[in-house]
Structure formats: structure tokens, C-alpha cells
């Protein structure tokens, strides 16, 4: 039974693994790269496994191009081998006993082509991904970036209707990652079907995905374009990923009473009710004396920690409200900023992004309190503006 032959992936299901339950509804039309961003244990890989048929759903169903591939209600289940799915695994899982050509020829061959035709198909893919000269190599003799491309070629060679990528770049070192990333983005653009890309790396998600879902504890907590999510994070986790301070509070005209203590003056758009306020760490100014400034928000705070990011210092401050603030290393020495030192913070009303996020009413943002950003790129604020 199909309800409207919607093209692409249609996932509306629950997957149970012991105590953990993933409950997600999502669709991905052909040609879209849907990024799934979430911390470890949020259910990202479980989602991919369910789509690939490595795990059955416990409720709901999954459709590809309008055809049921898994339906817990009537028991229909298409085995993994029969699903038109290409899976690029986190550690690639290239077959160590086959050379690159045979790895890529594996899928066409087991799907019915003769060995020779399968190898011809594989050669075509290797050519396309610039891997022709590696055909005879064993996976063990490839660099991380090459192995990643071979894994992609192997998944694509089976002519899948749907592509799944599990942390495609996480096994690479930071240098190759950037090269492979732009290349991967090109290849993904060439792929006709929907593509699910799972990652815990916000930069990867922002660069590669057309649309993002943020997954936490098995639920989607936010969906939108990378730009929307980078500007208006819905949860503390997302805020930390994109490098923003996030506060929950009640707005009344131009004043937001923050749930964790303190108030903000914001541009008055006549709003009322529960809102989130996002504040860029670089928009906050630190001074030793109460600042004489046009900024409408000034408050005292105490430094509790400093972290050196690539070109700036992120200061963790406790106050009402607490905040992460980015300053230059020069400012740190000039103002003698050290842990325990009381300072004044100021922020312009116009720098505060105020928005409501009613989809997630029980999320307790009163206790928002960010740890120093330990993101290894130190560049998470580089989201699209």
C-alpha cells in the first residue's frame, strides 16, 4: 500500500535499541543533501541503519519513492541487500582482501553483472572520482582521503536510489578534511537521489547539507536550512555547536527576563511570551570599569575560564546572565584578564537575536550554562550569515 508516490525518502518511524528509542519523521526529496546533526548517542547512526535495513523499525514505516521498505504495522520488511541504498560507513569498511577495483565492482557484480562488466562499471566510477590510478591497490595502502573516495565510489557503483553517509569525514585528519570536503560536496551535488549525511561536526553539516535536522536523544529538536540553524539555535547543544550564547526567557516588549537570572533589553517588536535569545560571543564587549557606552545591556560578571581558539580567546564568564565572550589575545594581556577577575560586559540590543521556538516547549533553557567551547575547529561561528 502506498499513500501518494512521493519521490525520495519518507521516514516516519520508531527504532528501539534496548533502552534507547529513536522517533523521527522526516522526508528527503531527490537531489537533497539532508544533514543530520547530533551529539554521540543521539540516534544518528541508528537512523541510517534503519534506512539501510540493518535494523528494523519497531513502529511506523519507511518508504523510498513511494514504496514501502519497512513497515512495523503489517510486518513488511525489505532485506538490506534488496534496498536501493548506498551506504558510506564511518570507517569506510572497505574489504581488506580485495583491491580498490574489486571493492567498487562488488556491488554491480553481486547485483547481476558479469565480473567483467562489473569491473568496467567500477573503472568508470574510479575514473569519475579520480581514482583510476589506485585500482590495483589494497585499501590498507590508501590514504584516508583516498579511502573515503573509494568508499563513495563503491556505494555509488551499485546505482542506489538513496545515499547514506555516516560521518564521512570524521576519520580524516584536519588538513585532508578540507580538501575532501569540497570534493565530496561536488560529488553529492551530482547524485540524483536523496542523500542523508550524518555528522556531529557542525562545519561539515553547514558546508555539505542543503537542509539540516538536529537530533538529540532520539528526537528531532530543530530543522531548517544551515543558515537558519546557525542564526537561531533551538537548543543549548545547537547553540554550542554554532558557537552562540543562548538564553531562554520571557519577553515583554523590549525587555526579556531570562530564566537563569538577569534581563536583556532587546529591540521592541511588541513580542510577548517565551523566547530564545542568541548572542554572538564576539558581540560582547569586556571592560574593567562600568562601561560608558551606548550599548543598552551592561552587567557585571566574573571570569571563570579562558580558552585559546586559533585567533582569539574565548572567555567563560559567570554572571546574570553567564556568557561566553570572544576577545583578541591582545585584549587579554592589555586588560590583564585572568580567571576570577570581575569585569563588566556590554552588548547592543541590536546584537541580540530574539525568536520564539514553540515546537520545543519543555526544553529547560533556564539552566542554560555553556561550558567553554572545546570544538576542535575553533571556527564554529563561521556559519553562513
Amino acid at each position, binding site marked *: 500500500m502506498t499513500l501518494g508516490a512521493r519521490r525520495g525518502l519518507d521516514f516516519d518511524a520508531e527504532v528501539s535499541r534496548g533502552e534507547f528509542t529513536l522517533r523521527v519523521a522526516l522526508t528527503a526529496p531527490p537531489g537533497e543533501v539532508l544533514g543530520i546533526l547530533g551529539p554521540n548517542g543521539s540516534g544518528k547512526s541508528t537512523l541510517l541503519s534503519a534506512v*539501510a535495513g*540493518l535494523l528494523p523499525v519497531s513502529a511506523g514505516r519507511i518508504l523510498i519513492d513511494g514504496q514501502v521498505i519497512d513497515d512495523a504495522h503489517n510486518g513488511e520488511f525489505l532485506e538490506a*541487500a534488496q534496498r536501493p541504498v*548506498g551506504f558510506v560507513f564511518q*570507517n569506510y569498511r572497505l574489504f581488506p582482501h580485495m583491491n580498490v577495483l574489486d571493492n567498487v565492482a562488488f*556491488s554491480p557484480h553481486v547485483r547481476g553483472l558479469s565480473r567483467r562488466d562489473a569491473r568496467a562499471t567500477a573503472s568508470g566510477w574510479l575514473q569519475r572520482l579520480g581514482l583510476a590510478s589506485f585500482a590495483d591497490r589494497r585499501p590498507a595502502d590508501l590514504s584516508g582521503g583516498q579511502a573515503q573516495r573509494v568508499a563513495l565510489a*563503491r*556505494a555509488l557503483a551499485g546505482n542506489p536510489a538513496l545515499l547514506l553517509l555516516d560521518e564521512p569525514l570524521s576519520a580524516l585528519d584536519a588538513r585532508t578534511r578540507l580538501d575532501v570536503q569540497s570534493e565530496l560536496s561536488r560529488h553529492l551535488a551530482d547524485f540524483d537521489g536523496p542523500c542523508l549525511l550524518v555528522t556531529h561536526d557542525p562545519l561539515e553539516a553547514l558546508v555539505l547539507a542543503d537542509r539540516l535536522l538536529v537530533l538529540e536523544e532520539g528526537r528531532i529538536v530543530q530543522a531548517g536550512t544551515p543558515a537558519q540553524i546557525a542564526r537561531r539555535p533551538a537548543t543549548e547543544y545547537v547553540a554550542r555547536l554554532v558557537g552562540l550564547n543562548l538564553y531562554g526567557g520571557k519577553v515583554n516588549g523590549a525587555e526579556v527576563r531570562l530564566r537563569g537570572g538577569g534581563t536583556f533589553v532587546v529591540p521592541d517588536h511588541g513580542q510577548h511570551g517565551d523566547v530564545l535569545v542568541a548572542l554572538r560571543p564576539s558581540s560582547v564587549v569586556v571592560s574593567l570599569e562600568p562601561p560608558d557606552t551606548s550599548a543598552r545591556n551592561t552587567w557585571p560578571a566574573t571570569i571563570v575560564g579562558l580558552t585559546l581558539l586559533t585567533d582569539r580567546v574565548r572567555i567563560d564568564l559567570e554572571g546574570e546572565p553567564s556568557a561566553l565572550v570572544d576577545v583578541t589575545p591582545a585584549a587579554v594581556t592589555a586588560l590583564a584578564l585572568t580567571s576570577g577577575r570581575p569585569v563588566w560586559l556590554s552588548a547592543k540590543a541590536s546584537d541580540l537575536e530574539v525568536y520564539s521556538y514553540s515546537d520545543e516547549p519543555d526544553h529547560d533553557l533556564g539552566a542554560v550554562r555553556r561550558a567553554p567551547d572545546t570544538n576542535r575547529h575553533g571556527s564554529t561561528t563561521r556559519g553562513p550569515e
Partner: protein
Amino acid sequence: METLAAPARLSTRERQRRSVRGGGSRSVPAPLLAPSLIAVLFLVLPLIGLIIRAPWGNLWSILRNSDTSQALRLSLWTSTAAAAVSLIIGVPLAWVLARTDFPGLRLLRALVTLPLVLPPVVGGVALLLAFGRRGFIGRYLDQWFGITIPFSPAAVVMAETFVAMPFLIVTVEGALRSADLGFEEAAATLGASKMTVFRRITVPLVAPSLGAGAVLCWARALGEFGATITFAGSFPGRTETMPIAVYYALETDPDAAIVLSLVLLLVSVIVLVTLRDRWLRGGSTQ
């Protein structure tokens, strides 16, 4: 401060060794040294005896003697056949034991490994009771098809397989258990059926253990005595394998017994060398 004990002398060589390898003294305490020496002598002296007493002069002529070479040939082909049969039916069973789950699996695993600890002669008696002319299966084989197994080369192969196959099964099952299922999952997502996964992914990935298990199984079959002599007897040229020939030759022609033993010793050494990296270092099968 208490007076320290008088320092011992540390040779330059020992200093060198400790600074490179780390660790403390390597000297063996006397209560451990003596028993270990006795153990070594106990294991090695008999083998030395074999080599000393060997009739090196007529080695070749004894080996070419028809009885000896017959036994050698019989032993080689039956143990190879036993290893082949074990591969054909034992590897699939190892897969079933490692990868499936059903009620009674534990019992089945215990049964399969029973011949490892069962005295071989008991295995021979059991085979006789099942496949002998009046055995509960052998009776019908005889009545319906006119097939009698006992005291034939086929019985030798069966006895050897019975005793040796568990070695292969246990080795391969262990390898299958510790194998990375990720590769099999990947193969499934690429469209491979379960049988294709087994053939093209699972088996090649455990090939080293498969080889080791097969060699171990073959060596065990080659040395088989108790089950074979019980179930297959000792007809020269038909069922008299090397170990049985050694046993009988000891009474009639001790030189031949020694030569045959030397051949078996040589084979064992070759097997050990083949498996050296798998069992002598670390003891893991992977």
C-alpha cells in the same frame, strides 16, 4: 637511616639490556629453575633418543620398504581426506555455531567439541556401534545398499574426521566470533545475499584461521590411533596408518618403528613451524 644492603655487581651487558628493554632482574629463582630444567629434559630427551637410535644408514631402504611406504601413503591420503571433509562440513557448522541463535545451541556446541576431550578409543567404539555391520545405521547401510564401512579405508577417514574435525570447528568458530561484522553489513548494503557474503567476505577474512584450523585438523588426523584401530582395524595397506604401523613395528621391526616415528616427528615440526606465528606467540588466533 637504616644501612642499605650491599650492592651486587651489575655487568655492563646487563645494564645495557635493562636500559634498552626496561624491567628489573631476569634471573630465575632456584626453586623454579630446577623443576623447569627437569620438565625440559623430560620433553626433549625422548625425542633425542629417537634421533640417536635412528638407523640413519638404512633410512632410505626402510622407507622404501613396501609396508612402510604403504602406511605412509595411506596415512597421508586419509588424513588429507579427513581434513577436506572437515572443511566441507565443519566450516558451515562453525558459521552456524558462531552466527546463529536457537534453543539448544549451547548443547550443540558442547556436543561438537566433545571429541576434543573424549578418549579416541571411545570414539572408535561409538563409531562401531553406529556404523558397524550391526550398528543402528550400519545395519541398514548393509541391508539396503550392501555397504559395510568398518575395517575399510573409509572407516579410517571417518574415525580421523570424528576426532580431528572439532579442532577445525573450534578454531574457525573463534575467528568468526571475533571477526568484524562491519564488513558483512557493508556487503549486505551493497546487495550481497547471505551466501555471497559468506563466500566473498566472511571466508576470505577468516582465511588465516581457516588455514591454521585445517593444518591442526590434518595433523591431528595424521596422528590418530585409538579411534582408527577400534573402528577400522589394522589391515596393512588398507587401514594400517602410520601410528598403527609404528605400534606393530615396534614388536617385529624396531628400526622401521623408529623411522616411521621420525617421519611423524618431522611432519609435526613442519606443522609447528607453519603455525608458529599463530600459537607460539601470544596464543591468539587472529
